[in-house]
C-alpha cells in the first residue's frame, strides 16, 4: 500500500482581522491521534523575529481546533484560542529586553501560522511545515482615516472612523517613554471613536525650544477635537496610561476648558504636586529617585517612588471634585507604579466626597504595568529610555505574569470599549447589547 501524501488542511478564520479580533485556527484531514505543533512566526518592524508554538494531538476525526482543544505544551498550555499571539516571544538568540510595538499602523502585522509534524520544541525555521497560512492583523479598519495634526504646535495624529460622523472624540496619552504612539488611537477609531494620539513629552515644540509643554498644550489638543466638524464637541473622553494618567486626572478635575464625558486611566496615579507643570510633576518623582530598587536581574523597580501615598492634599489630585465617570485599570503586580494602592486611595477619597458612583475600578491579580490592547505579546521587563536630558537607558521591570496579564488585557479592553460607548453615546437602550460589536 503506497503512502498517500498528507493533504493536511490548515485554516485561520478570519485571515485578515483587527488586532483585537479573535480567530479560529483549524487543522484538518490528518489521522486521529496525530501529534502536531502549531507555530506562529512574526517579524516585527525593527527586524526581530518572534515565535509561539503549542503541541496538540488530533481527535478521532483527525482535527485540531485551537479554540476548543488543549495545548499540551509550548509557549502556552490549555485551551487558549489566542495563545499563538499573546505568547509570542523573541526567537532564541535575540537581544534581551525587546518589546513589540507597531509604529506604522497603516500596514498590518503579518503572522505566519504553520503546522509541523510531531511535538517540536525548537528549530522550526529549519524544518518544512506541513501547511501554513499567512494572517494579517490590522490596527486600522478599512475606511479609518489617519490625519496628522500640526495646528496649535501639536505633535499628534487623529484617526477618524469611516463614515460621515459626527463621532465622539478621545484624547489618547501614553506614558514616560514619550514619542508619538498611534496604535491604540487607530484601534479606537476602528471602533467608532475619533481618537487623537498626542505626543506630549517629545513633541516637535519641545525638541525645538527645549521646554516641556504644559496645560495649554493639552487644552489645545482638546479644542482641536471639540472644533472638528466630524467630532461631537460635547462627547469627548480622555485615556491615559502610566504618566498619561497623571495628565488625564489633572485635566479632568482642574481644567476650566476641558469638559470630559468620561476618562479612562490605566496603571497610573493621582499623586502629583497640585498646580505644578508637567515638568514639575516629573521633578517631584525624581526627587524620590533614591527609592529606586533593583531585582535579582538588575531590572529597575520604580513603584516605590510614589509610596507611601501622601496624606498632604496638595500632593494629590482632589478626586472628590471629579464630575465625570472614571474607569481605573490597574495591575496588582505593577512594579513600575503603585497603581493598585493609588486606585484604592482614589476610591477612598471619592467615597468620602460622595462621588464614588462615578468610579469603576478594574484590578487584575498578577497583571503588570503595561496593560495594552489584547493579544499583544507580553513583556515582564524591557529596555526603557527616559525622556530626561541626557536620556538614560535601563531595563525596566513592568511586572505581571504571562497568562494572567494576557487575560487582564483582554478583559480590560472589552470593558473599556463598553465604558467608552456607554458614556460617549449616551444612556444605553434597554435590551441593546454591545457583546457582538
Amino acid at each position, binding site marked *: 500500500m503506497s503512502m498517500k*501524501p498528507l493533504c493536511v488542511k490548515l485554516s485561520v478564520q*478570519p485571515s485578515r482581522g483587527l488586532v483585537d479580533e479573535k480567530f479560529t485556527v483549524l487543522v484538518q484531514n490528518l489521522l486521529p491521534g496525530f501529534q502536531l505543533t502549531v507555530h506562529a512566526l512574526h517579524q516585527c518592524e525593527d527586524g526581530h523575529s518572534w515565535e509561539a508554538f503549542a503541541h496538540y494531538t488530533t481527535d478521532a476525526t483527525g482535527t485540531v481546533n485551537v479554540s476548543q482543544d488543549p495545548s499540551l505544551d509550548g509557549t502556552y498550555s490549555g485551551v487558549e484560542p489566542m495563545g499563538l499571539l499573546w505568547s509570542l516571544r523573541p526567537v532564541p538568540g535575540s537581544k534581551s529586553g525587546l518589546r513589540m510595538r507597531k509604529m506604522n499602523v497603516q500596514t498590518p502585522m503579518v503572522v505566519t501560522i504553520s503546522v509541523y509534524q510531531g511535538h517540536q520544541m525548537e528549530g522550526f525555521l529549519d524544518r*518544512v511545515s506541513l501547511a501554513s*497560512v499567512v494572517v494579517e492583523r490590522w490596527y486600522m479598519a*478599512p475606511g479609518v482615516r489617519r490625519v496628522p495634526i500640526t495646528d496649535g504646535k501639536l505633535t499628534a495624529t487623529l484617526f477618524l472612523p469611516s463614515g460621515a460622523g459626527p463621532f465622539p472624540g478621545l484624547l489618547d496619552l501614553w506614558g514616560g517613554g514619550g514619542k508619538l504612539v498611534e496604535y491604540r488611537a487607530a484601534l479606537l477609531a476602528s471602533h467608532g471613536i475619533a481618537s487623537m494620539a498626542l505626543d506630549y513629552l517629545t513633541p516637535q515644540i519641545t525638541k525645538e525650544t527645549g521646554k516641556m509643554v504644559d496645560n495649554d498644550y493639552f487644552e489645545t489638543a482638546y479644542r482641536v477635537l471639540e472644533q472638528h466638524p466630524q467630532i*461631537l464637541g460635547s462627547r469627548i473622553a480622555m485615556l491615559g496610561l502610566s504618566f498619561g494618567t497623571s495628565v488625564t486626572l489633572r485635566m479632568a478635575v482642574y481644567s476650566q476648558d476641558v469638559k470630559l464625558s468620561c476618562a479612562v486611566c490605566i496603571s497610573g496615579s493621582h499623586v502629583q504636586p497640585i498646580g505644578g507643570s508637567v515638568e514639575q510633576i516629573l521633578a517631584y518623582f525624581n526627587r524620590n529617585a533614591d527609592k529606586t530598587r533593583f531585582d535579582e536581574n538588575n531590572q529597575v523597580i520604580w513603584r516605590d517612588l510614589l509610596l507611601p501615598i501622601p496624606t498632604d492634599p496638595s500632593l494629590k489630585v482632589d478626586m472628590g471634585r471629579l464630575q*465625570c465617570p472614571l474607569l481605573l485599570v490597574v495591575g496588582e503586580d505593577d512594579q513600575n507604579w503603585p497603581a493598585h494602592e493609588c486606585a484604592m486611595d482614589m476610591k477612598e477619597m471619592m467615597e468620602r466626597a460622595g462621588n464614588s458612583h462615578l468610579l469603576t475600578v478594574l484590578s487584575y491579580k498578577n497583571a503588570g504595568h503595561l496593560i495594552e490592547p489584547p493579544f499583544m505579546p507580553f513583556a515582564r521587563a524591557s529596555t526603557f529610555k527616559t525622556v530626561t536630558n541626557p536620556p538614560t537607558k535601563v531595563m525596566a521591570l513592568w511586572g505581571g505574569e504571562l497568562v494572567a496579564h494576557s487575560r487582564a488585557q483582554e478583559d480590560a479592553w472589552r470593558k473599556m470599549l463598553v465604558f467608552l460607548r456607554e458614556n460617549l453615546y449616551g444612556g444605553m437602550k434597554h435590551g441593546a447589547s454591545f457583546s457582538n460589536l
Partner: protein
Amino acid sequence: MIALGGKMIPCYTVQRNLACIQRTVGGVRWTSSCRPAPLLTASPVRALIDDKISIRGHFLPPRCPVTVCAQMQSDDGDLWEAFAHFNTNSDGTVNLTRDPSVGGSYLGCEPMGLLWGLQPAPGAREGLRQAEKKKVETPYVMLMSLLKGHVSPSERPSTELAAVTAERWYMAPGVRRIEIRQNGVVGTLFLPPGPGPFPAMLDLWGMGGGLVEYRSALFASRGYASFSLAYIGHKDLPGPQNLINVGDPYYKSAFQLLQDHPQVYPDRIGIIGLSFGVYLALRLASHSGIKPSCLICINGPAGSTIKLADADGRTEQTENDQKYWTYDDQGNVSFRAVSLPANLSPESKVKLEHLTCPLMYIVGEDDLSASSVENANLIEETLSAAGKSQLLTRLSYPGAGHLIEPPYTPNSRASLWSVKPQKLVTLWGGHLAPHAAAQEDSWKKILEFMETNLRH
C-alpha cells in the same frame, strides 16, 4: 418615536437637537434615555469575495424605515450601487441575515443581496459588464451606509446615519501571484501560502480573450495552485489577436508546466472551463493524452463553434459564425445559436467516450450566449451511450445566464462586447436573483467537487 399631532415620527432630529443642548450646558453629564448614535457593522470587515458577510444596523428607533446602501468603485473607476429598504425590528436593529428587503435592488431576505445586486450607478457608462477585476492584488472597497427612511442612494448624504467600509479580496494573505511567460505559454499562476505541494487547477475562460485571473486567485486562496491560461486576444500570444493561433501542443505545455512545478502534485490537477473554455477542457481531456483528475465545465460547447484551421485546433476567421447571431429589438446580439450542436463543426466534436475522469457540467438555463442546455444533453447522451454516465454530475440552474462566476459579485444580463467594427452589446441572459443564487450554489459545489477529486 415622538407623537406630533397624532403622527408618529422617528426621533432622529430630536436626538441631534438634544446633543446640541449638551454643548451649551457644559460640564453636566447628560444621563438621558436616548439611544446611542446609530451604528452600521459589517462582519468580517475584510473578507474574501466568496465569504459571506453579516451586515447589521444597531441603535435605531424600533419599527422605522431605513435604507442600507452599498457602493463600490471598479478598477476602471465605474461606480456600482445597490440599496435595500428595511423596517427595523422592535429592538431597533436591522440584520440582513434575518430581515427581508421590502424594496430597492432586491426583495426578500438575501444576506448578500447588496453585493450581487450592485448595478452601474445612474450616469455610468453604458453596457458595463459585471465589474471584472483586473488587479486582483487589491481589494474591492465597499462603502456601506445606513440612511434614514426608504430612499434611493442619490438622496444621500443628508440622511446618512452611519457608515462602514468593507474590503472584499480575491487573494487571501500570503497567496502568491506569478506571471508565466515560459515555453511560449502565457498565463498567471497563483500559489497558496506555505511549502505545498498543492493540488492544482488549469483555468480557462471564453472568447472574450485576455487573461482572467480572479477565479484562479480565489482557488489559491482556498488552497489550490491555479493557473489562468490565455489562448486568444493577448499581446504576448502569437498571430492576430482575433484568432486562436495556438493548438493542442500549447495547452499540453501549460498542463505540463503545472505538473513540473515543484509545489504542485503532478497527479492531482483538474481543469475548469467557461464558455469556449469548456470545449478546450473537454478536448484536452479526451484527445490529447493528458489525464486530468477532474473537469468542471460551465455553459460551453462540446465542439468548436469556429471552423478549425488545422487538426491542432487553431481557428479560421471568426466572422463565419455571424450567420447564427440573433438580435433583440434593442439591437443586442445573442450568440446562443452559434453553439447549437447542429451548428458545431462536426470534426471538432469532442470524443467524450474517451473521457476517464469525473466531469461536472454546470448549466444556466437562461443562457443567451451559448446553447448550454443542448450541449449538456449531448454530453449526457454521449457518456451514457459509452457506459460512463457515472462520471457526469450535471447542475442546472433556472433563471441563470451564461457567466456563472464566483458568488456575491454583480452580474449583468447584457454588456458591451465590441466597439469595432461596430458597437455591439451582447446578451448573457440570466435574471438577477436566480443568477446570484446559481453562482452561490455552484461555487460551493465546485469547491466540494475539487475537494473530493483533488484531495482524497
